[in-house]
């Protein structure tokens, strides 16, 4: 993956994967800006990029407040900003729109959605939504692979059967 022979060369992937999941992986006591500036230093990213991603997720007017004072949706937007801060070629997304209202989900679409142009691995129980933005679908039941096919050959009904 990305030129690394896994699992032995997993160290080669550091800095190449953006992860957005249930936990924001941000410090509650720090502000959005402090969190992202810290991540920027760790990734060797220019400080100016922090302002860009904060604007991109629509948090410019709340960026200096501690994360613990923000709503769940705002924290998820901050986590999305962290995930794309270093412009990673691969995004791992685990229910990335959890806690987002429709307007916020639309705001993040160019950053983490199909429009982002990145390779994305999306984990979701939203059958229609997930199918709509996938090229390839992997269906699991009880942790075992049930299907692995191009998205156009898979129907929502078939995917729902995995839950029965």
């Amino acid at each position, binding site marked *: 993956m990305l030129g690394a022979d896994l699992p032995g060369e997993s*160290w*080669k*992937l*550091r*800095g*190449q*994967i953006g*992860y957005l999941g249930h*936990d*924001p*992986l*941000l*410090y*509650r*006591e*720090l502000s959005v800006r*402090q969190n992202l500036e*810290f*991540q920027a*230093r*760790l*990734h*060797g990213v220019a400080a100016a990029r922090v302002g860009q991603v904060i604007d991109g997720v629509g948090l410019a007017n709340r960026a200096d407040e*501690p994360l613990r004072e923000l709503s769940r949706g705002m924290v998820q937007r901050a986590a999305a900003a*962290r995930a794309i801060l*270093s412009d990673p070629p691969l995004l791992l997304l685990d229910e990335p729109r959890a806690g987002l209202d429709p307007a916020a989900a639309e705001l993040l679409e160019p950053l983490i959605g199909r429009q982002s142009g990145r390779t994305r691995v999306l984990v979701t129980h939203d059958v229609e939504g997930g199918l709509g933005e996938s090229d390839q679908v992997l269906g699991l039941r009880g942790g075992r692979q049930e299907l692995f096919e191009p998205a156009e050959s898979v129907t929502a009904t078939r995917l729902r059967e995995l839950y029965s």
Partner: protein
Amino acid sequence: MRNGPGLFSASWALLRKDLAIELRTRESVPAMALFSVTVFVLLHFGTGRDTFSGGLAAGLLWVTLLLATVLGVNRLFVAEREQGGIDAVLLAPVDRTAVFIGKAAALFLYLVLLEVVAVPAFALLLLAQGSAVAVLPLAGVLLLTDIGLAAVGALVAAMASETRARDLVVPMLLLPLVVPLAIAGASATEPLLGAAGSAPELLRWLGFIGVYDMVFLLLSVAVFDFLLED
């Protein structure tokens, strides 16, 4: 791996982050200082004697500082594990050794701040008025010992952070490891608290502390990568 920051830039970033969180929460240093001052007050009023001297005074000082260190070590990785910060750090293109350096440096600064409060309180409450305390050599002993405490503390904090009974594991791992350091620190401190002692003896204990610091710094750097990966 993408080109990330150098080892010391990453360590500095981690240290700045920890100091920013401590400034905001004030969880570690105030608790450590309050604990130490409380112990000295209890000893002052509870033992029926106004002053201590020599080996007993040095021992009391170091036992108190060690127990206060346990409080700081317990909190060192809390934000990383409870808020998932360490996972974001592990995704970044930084050498894992930077995490050790950042954490050990943070603990070292916490210990220095603790001693800025605790040692004057100790002198005021437990030493006889007019005791000849050699302040500069004492500061040297404290700083040299703090390096070892910070190295072992950061290592133990990383090990304990993966366990559910972190509050129990930290003292069980930390205290046995720092017993030699506490003995050396107390022995080096004794002649500086007005008791009789010779310069060669002090230098011998300082040499021991220096060797201990070096061994545990190297050991921690060697094993820290594996601790974080596992």
